[in-house]
């Protein structure tokens, strides 16, 4: 078990929906794999492409950005702006030698604890399948 490869996955998630949803998964004791580390921001609109590129150059094997559903952003439209940027970045990832599935954006509301658990499960699975990041110098 100990020598199984552990992916490094970072989740940048918004305070109002996905963070609250993740808390709800906790209160409901919904179990999911621990291979993700969370950075909380107020809104996915805050997510600078720099953060994601930094994460990948630092050696992240996967990055998850998760926020409110469209139309439900606490700041009206931050998630639209954030999503637009991310989708653009996703299309550019190939150019630096990364599969675009390593970057994922999801929408998990404050009441979707079970969905959060599924999302993490899925992200961990996808990244594990993809293997270590080709650009990580480890």
């Amino acid at each position, binding site marked *: 078990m100990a020598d199984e490869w552990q992916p*490094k996955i970072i989740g940048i998630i918004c305070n109002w929906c996905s963070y609250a949803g993740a808390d709800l998964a906790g209160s409901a004791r919904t179990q999911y794999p621990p291979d993700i580390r969370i*950075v909380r921001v*107020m809104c996915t609109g*805050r997510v600078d492409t720099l953060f994601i590129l930094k994460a990948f150059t630092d050696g992240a094997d996967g990055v998850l950005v998760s926020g409110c559903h469209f139309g*439900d952003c*606490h700041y*009206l439209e931050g998630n639209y702006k954030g999503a637009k940027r991310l989708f653009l970045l996703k299309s550019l990832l190939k150019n630096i030698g990364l599969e675009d599935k390593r970057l994922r954006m999801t929408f998990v509301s404050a009441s979707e604890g079970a969905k959060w658990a599924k999302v993490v499960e899925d992200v961990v699975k996808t990244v594990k399948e993809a293997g270590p990041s080709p650009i990580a110098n480890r």
Partner: protein
Amino acid sequence: MAETKKTKKETAAKKEVKKQAAPVKIKEKQQPRIGVFACHCGTNIAGSIDIEALQAAAAKIPNVAYVDNYQYMCSTPGQKKIEDAIKEHNLTGIVVAACSPRLHEPTFRTATKEGGLNPFRFEMANIREQNAWVHMHDHEGATEKAIDAVRIAVAKAALLEDLIPKKVPVEKAAMVVGAGIAGMQAALDLANAGIKTYLIEKEPSIGGRMSQLDKTFPTLDCSQCILTPKMVDVGRNENIDLMTYSEVDAVEGYIGNFDVTIRKKARGVLTPKEAEGRGLVGGGCNGCGDCEAVCPVIKPNLFEVNMKPRKAIYINHPQVVPLIYTIDFDSCVKCGLCVTACGDKKAIDLEMEDELIKVKVGTAILATGYDLFPIEKKDEWGYNKYENVVTSLEFERLICASGPTGGHLVRPSDGVTPKKVAFLLCSGSRDNTGVGKPYCSRFCCMYSIKHAHQIIEKIPGVKPYLFYMDIRAFGKAYEEFYYRIQDEGARFIRGRVANILEDPVTKNLTVMADDTLLDRPMKLDVDMVVLATAVQPTTGVDTVRKMFGVSNSMDGWMLEAHPKLNPCGTTTAGVYLAGVCQGPKDIPDTVAQAEGAASAASIPIHMGAVELEPYFAMCIEEKCAGCGMCVNLCPYSALALVEKDGRKVMQVTEAKCKGCGTCGGFCPGGAIWMQHFATPQIVAQIDAFLLGGEQ
């Protein structure tokens, strides 16, 4: 499996005794000096995470100057540990690894402040909700994750700055949206507490669903009798500005200072006050009804669930508040007969247009109630197909003395009094078939029992049959009411109705069900079926919900800030919920929540000022190229380009900025400093996890 679990638990329990290890001291270091405190939360955290290992690892994280742990960090002794350590060890920042910041960030910020630091020099590592509770069977994985969470938090804490929350005055006025019993009660409480209250109702008159009911369980008070005095109070109260036939058009601002635009829909009829405003002293609508008498247009009356006609100019029922007629311009042919009938009162203006009114309020309560689930979707029960299948709301109108039949329950097909009536409880509720609602609508059991009583009282020899799954008689005096109606002769059959058949000639109905107590299928011929229909959020309410920044639950109802500890609040400061819009509840619970919401909404107003989290954006002018891209990104128009020293730079209006950081996420030059979520802080968090490092 069970055994391994037990041993794990045992070892965890043993560890716990050990875990109260002595605090680790680390050699004196230059700035920053972060104190890390790990919480056991009893066994909530310590049951999954090895606190000792966490503490040892934390001690090695760069900039950590002190590490400690405690059973319950949020307790008084726990907080005292933080306060003392700040002073004793000259700390510059605090990290508590415990529950969610959404729960205890305020607690630990206060402790940080008590210790002499700026409260914003605090960062929380969530190792309970997002760790111990979700990785209960992977202690190693959980502990590793906790160590990283602390690493990430320390990295941020090392870069946190002193921030001063902005104090803003609170407008001494409130708004209540929706004037059902919830909204009316909330508005009355606020108004009686001396607060100017705008009560916004989309319908021409107030009262909501309760005004459509005949009697109310379990006391059997006549609904109108207990409601009308309240409606009159609302209409009269000097502090309530009642705006009927109005809707919220736009909301801007934040707690203490919401700028709300209200669309007053053109009702085509002037109130006496409005008439006076137009110089027609003594004019305006007095509710005489002369206009209605001459109106040639006939439409179905929605208040009577389409079982009675109304004119294009109408009032819903005789007791309406306000007693002002309304023209339904969608069906009005503008023949002008009403204008003539109205005469000198000159109350009718066929050319009236919608009016936009702006008001400023400090807090707001949403009380938008519910609609019935469109039960025709449940094809098997034949609503809209069989004439004698009605909804519970139709039943209320049919049994009500002021209803379309004067309170005589009759079959819609032939006007004959039914002798055998089946009531289908949970019609569309507790339904996981995909067509229907998974939740319990909470008042259907009780009102169906009430309905059974009402027909027994009115129709000699009638036989009510109630098909149920479980009877939920949970409230005060409800169980007693249930027994009483059983004694009165109502028959209760435990089983869901599979389908209903109709005799095409007599229009009589055959109910096919499974009697699960006798464990046999059954067939019952009845004259009429009443569907105790599920409820769902009022149609179109998402627009107003989103305008106020309120989230919704999985099932569509508005989401409270905390299901137990903050059932009236929302995630938007200054916005509260009352009544069924938050989830199905009967009148007693609705009124209780409305009073709670009114009390909560009055607190900021009575305080006079509130503190806003100082998370706003700032421009680093040396870096700003004046491109102006951020200006267009801001959803609140908080940013503008200004001339400074001969060049353009961005400027933030702090009062308008809500701190989402959308501008900061985009600025190509990195010229926007998002306080408390600044780029170097977030990058440090990412680096801390991925690059690690030891001191």
